[in-house]
């Protein structure tokens, strides 16, 4: 049984819920503008976006070293998330970057990072197989999972294994032999371009090196043929358990941190009925009863915490330096953009929360609202955030009574450190 469409028009708290989950957050005016719309129309509007991004003041190619270039690149992405008219596109790119994982510890090339992010944006609403094909073929993935070293007769299994374990079917749904045969099929997939430490600004492009490809017969996930890389990515992406894993990722990203077998089964069915079409699946998900019935059940990631505060306050006037600081803050909060701790990516949920990250979230909230703090506050905004409403920050029309006698900045600070803001 697929997801159940919701038919009643949106109230203010429904609209706040939708925008908290799809847009990192929104101002009170943006929320109220959706009141009375059908869930279907509201979702459809969010799911239309171009691939072009805003002009950026960041010039990573002019950096003196790859490390600095990556910092600028991350800050540029953070700025896009804060300012874009299409936040769902960035939210999806962030989600897929946590599925088709790469890491800037190995991928130190700007064109590879730029191409990777463009692929995730451009295919965010494609068929999942097309997204997987495009993502796996990026020079970033080639480099991160060592497939440029995977040659006929000299296998490197890294991409072959993670394609099955993490990108598609999931553990338990393939054999060691599938890993090895998949690695054979992926031989010859590599990238062109300089790769030395000083060449971080030079272009890298995917290429197929036929001389290094093993053209022999392979048996993969129960099928036999002279498979190449495209064939096995299609087979892996079309594996029945891939549907469950994609549904699981969407559920975790948009519905709840907590497992819900029945809900995920419905979402899997919706995905299957669409033939793996991500736009149709998301349209159904974001206008379903299941989506609107689930409130305050996802712990905000560091990015959602920071971008959410700024978007809810309607901030458009932040300078470059501050974006760089905030981007470094995301790393200290546990979410270094495009550099998760392992190839599995961030598990999220309660794993975002521990003593140190809670303390740092409070410190960041203070710096954003109360301005220049004494001590070690490392995220200074020139001006404090203007006061967003309880609807914008907490998703509720009612301000907590404990905050009644405080000034605007103090009220905003305490809302940002409340459990209610930490949840979407």
């Amino acid at each position: 049984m697929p997801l159940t469409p919701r038919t009643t028009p949106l109230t203010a708290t429904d609209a706040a819920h939708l925008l908290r989950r799809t847009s990192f957050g929104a101002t009170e005016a943006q929320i109220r503008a959706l009141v009375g719309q059908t869930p279907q129309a509201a979702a459809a509007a969010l799911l239309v976006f171009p691939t072009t991004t805003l002009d950026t003041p960041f010039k990573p190619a002019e950096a003196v070293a790859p490390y600095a270039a990556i910092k600028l690149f991350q800050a540029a992405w953070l700025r896009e998330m804060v300012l874009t008219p299409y936040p769902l596109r960035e939210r999806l790119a962030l989600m897929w970057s946590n599925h088709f994982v790469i890491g800037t510890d190995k991928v130190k090339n700007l064109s590879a990072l730029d191409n990777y992010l463009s692929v995730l944006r451009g295919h965010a609403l494609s068929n999942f197989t097309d997204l997987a094909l495009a993502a796996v073929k990026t020079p970033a993935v080639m480099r991160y999972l060592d497939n440029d070293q995977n040659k006929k007769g000299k296998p490197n299994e890294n991409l072959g294994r993670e394609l099955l374990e993490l990108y598609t079917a999931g553990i338990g749904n393939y054999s060691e032999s599938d890993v090895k045969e998949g690695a054979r099929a992926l031989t010859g997939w590599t990238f062109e371009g300089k790769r030395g430490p000083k060449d971080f600004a030079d272009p890298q492009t995917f290429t197929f090196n036929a001389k290094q490809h093993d053209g022999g017969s392979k048996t993969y996930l129960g099928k036999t043929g002279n498979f190449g890389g495209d064939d096995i990515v299609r087979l892996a992406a079309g594996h029945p358990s891939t549907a469950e894993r994609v549904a699981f990722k969407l559920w975790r990203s948009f519905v709840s941190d907590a497992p819900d077998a029945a809900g995920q089964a419905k979402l899997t069915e919706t995905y299957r009925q669409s033939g793996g079409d991500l736009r149709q699946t998301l349209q159904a998900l974001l206008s379903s009863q299941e989506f609107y019935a689930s409130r305050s059940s996802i712990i905000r990631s560091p990015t959602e915490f920071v971008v959410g505060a700024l978007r809810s306050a309607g901030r458009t006037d932040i300078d470059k330096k501050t974006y760089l600081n905030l981007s470094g803050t995301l790393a200290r909060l546990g979410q270094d953009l495009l550099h998760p701790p392992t190839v599995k990516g961030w598990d999220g949920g309660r794993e975002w929360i521990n003593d140190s990250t809670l303390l740092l979230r409070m410190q960041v909230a203070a710096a954003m609202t109360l301005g220049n703090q004494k001590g070690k506050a490392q995220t200074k905004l020139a001006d404090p955030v203007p006061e967003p409403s309880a609807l914008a920050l907490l998703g509720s029309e009612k301000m907590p009574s404990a905050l009644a006698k405080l000034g605007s900045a103090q009220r905003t600070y305490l809302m940002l450190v409340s459990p209610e803001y930490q949840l979407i």
Partner: protein
Amino acid sequence: MNRRDFLKLSALAVSVTSGMPGFLARAAATAGGDKTLVVIQLTGGNDGLNTLIPYSNGAYYAARPNIAIGKKDVLNLTADLGMHPSLRALSKFWDAGQLGWLENIGYPNPNRSHFASMAIWHTADPTQAASDGWIGRIAETIGDPFCASNIGNATPLALQAKQFSLPSISSVDSYQLKLPAGLHDPFTTLLNAPRQGEAEYLQAATKQMLLNTAKVQKNLSKYRSGAVYPDSKFAASLQDIARLIAGGNGQRVLYTSLGSFDTHAGQRAEQDDLLRELAEGLAAFQADLDVQGLADKVVVMGFSEFGRRVAENASAGTDHGQGSVMFVLGKSVKGGIHGDSPDLENLADGDIRYKQDFRGVYAHALDTWLNLDSKEILGGKFDGPKWLS
């Protein structure tokens, strides 16, 4: 933080205690024991064969023409085994009988996924059914969420418990809350409002953090550094561990990680650097413990989720394997090699066959060092090398 701020913070911490579950109230009193186990996780699958090297074995050199450690570089320990040259800083502990290597450690039906395998080491459950970690279960047995802490950014599964989450401390210096003036009362009121679901979880986590940070900051002044630590994040974490132990915070298990050891390509450069970071950090840590007069009270136990395949791959790296080595370090450790050298002529799918279950290694630490019932924590009785003296 000045003294006045600290007093306010203590008052805040006390004021939130009233809403705490019962298990926290009895925590400190029952923690007991004055010995600490430090667990080092080598993330990413450390290559055991290039860590403890079977340098007399021709099969080792035959399988690894490019990445083997040359005989002349090996730090000989026995007639057959020696350490990677990057581990030189640990030689003096071997000579003093304070460094032990545990051979061929693994678990049934090895899993070559980093994450499944790491989860097995964390939960001590090769069936992958358990959702809590073995150190989380220690904390629940003792009844104190502060009796085990991770030093790092994220709490590993090993420290997840059913009732509560154990602290992760990214750095001891920043482990303190400074609440802006005038906000103590509204914050306390806001925090104490009744909640359900994930909001209740976040509320409890915040309250617990207030208690933990106040406790640590109160005890920090007892420590004076007794060693010069190398300039690495790992060494800084070890120094934070020394500070926490010297502060008398009552933690029984402290945990930190170093990695990534996922050396699919160009292994030598990557692993060589990581092993040096490991050895130099640990040597400073041991020297510091000596100065603190705590060397008898602390043992270190290091592991990785799996070793790597015996044969190198064509990228001068190694793919995921099975059994590997563990190490133990400390004045109370029985130095030497525990177990047989790997049989490189009899492999399982190209990998070393494990001979000793890692749960036996944990069990010995639990029963002998931490004075806890390993059967209760590991869900069964496991035998292993007797690596404590």
